[in-house]
């Protein structure tokens, strides 16, 4: 092999190695599949048929970093009577009877080096669906979030596709848009979320 050939091979090898590092690092948020949940909880029934507000169950969203999940006790508040004979509700009653938490599978997650406060967004009247999608229509919550390879490839060949949900580009785009169109003061400083 010529000297240049060795050099080229070395460059390619180095690039591949760097790629592995970058790929592992940049793909930290999971690309969520339709979730498998311990209880088949239909958001659509609760939101559309019974008109229950998101924050009735996710009650911490307006005052905390986390939106919060309803306690088992809160579920049982209604389901002691409502649909108590259905098999899924019996599973719920079983958890309540054993005084055990329901091990829900997590669907939405930002990387651990990201600080995302629900409170700030709820107080700024951002609809839950803006980030979480049309959860009110879903029987099982699913979401495609985080960076995707397809997106990277499209970006590379010059297309500018919209960034997928829950990626930083997507957050920042919304903050910028809101600041221009609605004269808001959504922060754009890195350390607001990364500290």
């Amino acid at each position, binding site marked *: 092999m010529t000297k240049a050939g060795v050099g080229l091979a070395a460059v*390619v090898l180095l*690039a*591949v190695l*760097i*790629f*592995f590092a*970058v*790929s*592992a*690092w940049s*793909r*930290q*948020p*999971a*690309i969520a599949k339709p979730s498998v949940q311990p209880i088949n909880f239909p958001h659509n029934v609760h939101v559309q048929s019974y008109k229950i507000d998101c924050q009735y169950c996710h009650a*911490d969203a307006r*005052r*905390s*970093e*986390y939106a*919060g*999940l*309803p*306690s*088992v*006790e*809160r579920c049982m508040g209604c389901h002691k009577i409502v649909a108590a004979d259905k098999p899924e509700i019996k599973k719920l009653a079983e*958890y*309540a009877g054993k*005084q*055990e*938490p*329901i*091990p*829900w*599978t*997590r669907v939405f*997650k930002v*990387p*651990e*080096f*990201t*600080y995302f*406060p629900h*409170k*700030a967004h709820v*107080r700024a009247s951002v609809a839950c669906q803006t980030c979480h999608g049309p959860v009110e229509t879903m029987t099982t919550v699913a979401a495609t979030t985080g960076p995707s*390879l397809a997106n*990277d*490839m499209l*970006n*590379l060949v010059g297309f500018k596709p919209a960034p997928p949900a829950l990626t930083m580009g997507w957050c920042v785009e919304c903050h910028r848009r809101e600041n221009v169109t609605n004269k808001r003061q959504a*922060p*754009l*400083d*890195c*350390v*607001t979320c*990364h*500290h």
Partner: protein
Amino acid sequence: MNRRDFFKIVATTGATAAAAGCQQATEQILPLVVPNEQLVPGVAAWFATVCRECPAGCGVLARNREGRVVKLEGNPDHPVSQGALCGRGQAAVQGLYHPDRFPGPQRREGDALKPVSWDDALKTFAEKLGGVKGKGKTLAVVSQLENGSLGALLDRWTQALGGRPRVTLEPFGYEAIRAANRATFGRDAIPYYAIHDAEVVLSFGADFLETWLSNVHYARGFARMHTFRDGKAGTFIHVEPRQSLTASNADEWVRNAPGTEAAVALAVLKLMLEGGQAADRRFGDAVASVDPRKVAEESGVPLETLQNVAKTFAAAKPGLAIGGGVAVSGSHATATQIAINLLNAAAGNVGKTVRFGPDSAYGKVTPYAEVARLVQAMAAGEIEVLVLGSGVNPAFTLPGGLKVADAIRKVPFVVSFAGLPDETTALAHLVLPDTHWLESWGDYSPMEGVNGLLQPTMKPVRDARQMGDVLLAVGRTALGTEAGKGPLPWESFQQYLKAAWEPVVKDKWSEALSQGGTWREGAAAPAVAVSPRVERVDAAAAKLDGGEGLALIAYPSIRWYDGRTASRSWLQETPDTMTQTVWDAWAEINTETASKLGIRQGDVVKLTSPHGAIDLPAYLSPTIHPGAVAVPIGHHYAPYHLRLKYVPAGSASANPMALLPAAADAVSGGPAFLSVKVSVARTGARRPLAVLQATHDQDERELARHVDLATARKEALGGKKLHEAHLSMYSEHEYKGYRWGMAVDVDACIGCQACVVACHAENNVPIVGRAEAAYGRQVSWLRIERWAEGLAAQPHNMFLPMFCQHCEVAPCEPVCPVFAAYHTEEGLNGQVYNRCVGTRYCGNNCPYHVRRFNWWNYEFPSPLEIQLNPDVTVRQLGIMEKCTMCIQRIVAGKDHAHRDEKRAVRDGDIQTACQQTCPTKAITFGNLKDEASAVSKLANAPRAYHVLDEIGTRPSVTYLKKVVRGGHEPEPRTGKGQA
């Protein structure tokens, strides 16, 4: 090519390899079964309690996130701590989550402790108790200083079971102060010393900025008395053979020969009386035989100095003389303290700065002579059951001459309530781990009139039970009584506590709990007079056994106290301010003495007294008296979790207590910490110390600056502004909203390191261990630099807290290839961890050397990871990090002001962790754009300067020069004048 393109190209090159990808495992989220109305996930709940790391009893607030305590802060309403906390208090959470904590009760089987169920353990204990019940005084109970409900219950329990009177074991009991107060004032008590009200403080060895009585409280008081404010500043004179941290904060440090403190104090009194400066001249008899000239000769303190001290002290309105450390421990101890009492009485300070009434809890410690008697009884086989409360470790903290371990071995059944394995649990037959004080109910009164209340701030981390509960249950079984009947009717200790408090708080129990206790301000102090007969005080120097050699100064250290906090890794990694040493103990020897003995720094030396010997590396110091060797008390490696990882194998524990005699001081009955001479000999081995600051000579860099009092006063009144901003080749930053900045008063900083530990706790700063620290790889974001000026043997020290200066023209920012170091909209130097690729260019370009690199993935041994602050990212290998000015607190403060209260952030809304815990309020944080903010005023004060101002970095952190008192100005090293 910009950064994004670079990454795109890199990504394409290996696109094929991406197919595999990295998928995260599914994660579960668990809701609460029953919601707790007080706890909102993601929002901190605060619980008031009392710090029990030492008997000072500071009020603390515990920050509970999602049911776990993650940080402690001083309770601002509590009269002792007044919002501050020392490093030991900050590190208490490491005791709570200590990896070595007993997982549950243990019973001795052969040489080892084996886990046992609570039922079996309690049954064994009750049987043994039943066996000794009514068999004379064969049951002994030893606890730490418990003067509240637990103490009362222990006494009741001991009495019901027919045991010996309970022994309250505190290695530092200040018995000489009590003995002297009995002699001078007829009161067996340790009074409240109003340091904050004094103009001149004259201390004989009292390390009140480190461990003496109540170090946080007295540091707060010292700051009020001593820090330059509105043209005024008090004076502090300290007499000690060694330049301790407290001594180095003195305007005048007087180095005396060890053991001559009584003579020095009496000479000062005599000179004061001779000068006619004293208000009261009745005390001539006491000092009749004292010859100041002879004292000057013996103590090595020049007569002129003695005269000046007498003059300064007598002129103070009011002054305050205090005694502690080795000055009031030894055969001269009581005489020293009587002389101090007479000094106070002669100057008219009693009732003003010496206040009986709000007496210290230390006055209730069992005299050491009693403790020694108990040990003798154990050795004689008179004790059958020994009960040791949590917080006591007699096998380690008592003088080696007592041979406590041998005595304990003679006791057939030893029960320990310690939560962590130590030298004493190694001898116990049964270990019933007590809950940590952060998990416990209780009360503690650090001084008369202040009653602190403890409440559980979280569920117990381990399978521990509160000592009070165990005693009630076991006591009833042994006595054969039932709950509700007999001498121990209470169901639980909580019930007992509530019953005890009921008459005091009535229906205000919840209020008392949320406040952290009850206290009354300004309790009337009873009039105290000097007893009519003032006898002649013996000015003889302390008697030291051991013949030839150096006087051993065993001193309590600010980090270890008596050794009970030595298992906290934050404290191990926080340097001792004076020596800047981490992860080790040392023998401090005068440089000249060492050269005579052929000892170099880091040589392991054997210190031998008639009572024992220890090996320690030598630390050479130009300041310590040539006739003394000083060793900090309480350092030990073992037992320490994963110790082989953090310190080299074979590092033996080295406590100078092993060198001390059994005998109590004849006059006071206290232990004699200054009582032996030790021979110092090289062993041939070397153990270089991990010293984090290579030099204390700042050369001409003027990092820490000072100004003399007269100039400071003139400028303060004239409002002169000294520093101007340098020109910059970069475009100016514009700050639309806030611009954060800090100010550090070098005149107020006492170098106590509390801020350093608080920063570890708040910002998830990892520890690196001894070897890594020796390489200079420590991660702490904040360090206290000590800079010495003047004569080598008598330097004036300045303490410079150094952390990221958040420069406006920051050298770190332009060199970052990935834009991880950048300037934020609010004037901070942001550091974006997820961008950082670890080139370390920023660290190399930082002139302040405050950027820290993660050379490894540092671990937080389980369950210490529970302590991690959920608001701060845990950094991984290859990441650069540094002080963020507690950005998470800024974000939270803005969130609270903007969203909850619909207003801008006000001055004082946001406190950084270091500022919050500072006992002397040396650190201020705030908005530099607001001209009325405290930080702006300080930044524009005449004393303000920037470190390395001349390189034009324009830091957002302003320092205020130390004010040196007239006449005691440090000599400029090169004759160059100060700005």
